[in-house]
């Protein structure tokens, strides 16, 4: 470090003007993403934090170093993150709001999941197969999601924490060509956050 840099650091340490920083962590599933430092100290940069468990200082020329250990307060912060969302799939007899026998116990799993999450929020998501136009399937899946939301409300689920979303044919459970009937793709996914 140059004498001038050292002097600046001492001044900063005394004045308490520490630089901001960031820590890239591994994802919960073991992989990791990246964080691009688009600007630092008002200047554009091309720096990318791409190694999990690295610490980057921000504000001047970005410096990226291996993390070592998380500081205790950082560990507490990471541990206070909410749990990941959990997804459940329900199937219905065609054209009805009658659940298949396999799906009936899933309803109770959803109820239990909501009960153990304070401040829970629930997204009821409709999915179609690829029969028909994608615009029609958007509308159909939205209508289906609303129908099932009402069904859940009639079974004692709190309406104020639920919302309905139609995903149309964008997220096939079983990949198919266009215009293929698929009971496996016609489903409702309930996401509990």
């Amino acid at each position, binding site marked *: 470090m140059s004498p001038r840099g050292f002097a600046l650091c001492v001044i900063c340490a005394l004045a*308490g003007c520490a630089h*901001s920083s960031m820590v890239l*962590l591994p994802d919960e599933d073991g992989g990791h993403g990246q964080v691009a430092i*688009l600007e*630092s100290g008002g200047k554009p940069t091309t720096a990318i934090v791409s190694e999990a468990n690295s610490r980057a200082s921000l504000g001047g020329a970005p410096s990226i170093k291996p993390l070592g250990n998380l500081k205790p307060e*950082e560990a507490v912060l*990471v541990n206070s*993150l*909410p749990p990941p969302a959990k997804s459940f799939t329900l199937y219905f007899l065609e054209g009805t709001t009658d659940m298949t026998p396999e799906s009936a116990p899933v309803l109770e799993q959803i109820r239990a999941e909501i009960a153990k999450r304070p401040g829970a*929020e629930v997204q009821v998501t409709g999915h179609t197969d690829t029969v028909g136009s994608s615009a029609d399937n958007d509308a159909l899946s939205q209508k289906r999601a609303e129908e099932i939301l009402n069904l859940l409300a009639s079974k004692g689920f709190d309406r104020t924490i639920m919302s309905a979303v139609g995903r149309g044919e964008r997220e096939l459970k079983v990949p198919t060509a266009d215009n293929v009937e698929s009971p496996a793709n016609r489903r409702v996914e309930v996401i509990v956050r």
Partner: protein
Amino acid sequence: MVVRSLLLALSVGVIATSAQAEIARVKSASGIAVIQRGTARIPAATGAELQAGDYLETGKTGRISLTFIDNTRFAVGPNSRVAVSKFEYDRTRQQGSFITQVDRGSLAVVSGKIAKSGRDAMKVRTPNSLLGVRGTRFIVEVPK
């Protein structure tokens, strides 16, 4: 004139209502933990809803954790001030744009669907930097 002002007030009211969509919900909070919405200061209690433009503020022992409707998760540490300056999300297409501003304190993030929807669709701004989030878990710290 009175009628016109009333109509204007009504139409403004309608616009405001449509913009007040829920974007996240508080999962836990402790110590001094507040959602600031315009001039209103709302306790960040468990189950409280967040809207785009809100600030999250914590005191010396305060913490807030929350989950967004695109599955993004936040943990706000003590002595922090964090704004969700922009949150736009198309729930059908799972695409959007998300800008968070960390004025001070600490924020842990697990990114969600918006970060996956396009390069740097999720950004985090600190007083001296701008970060582009490319699908990951990370911490940002801004000392006083």
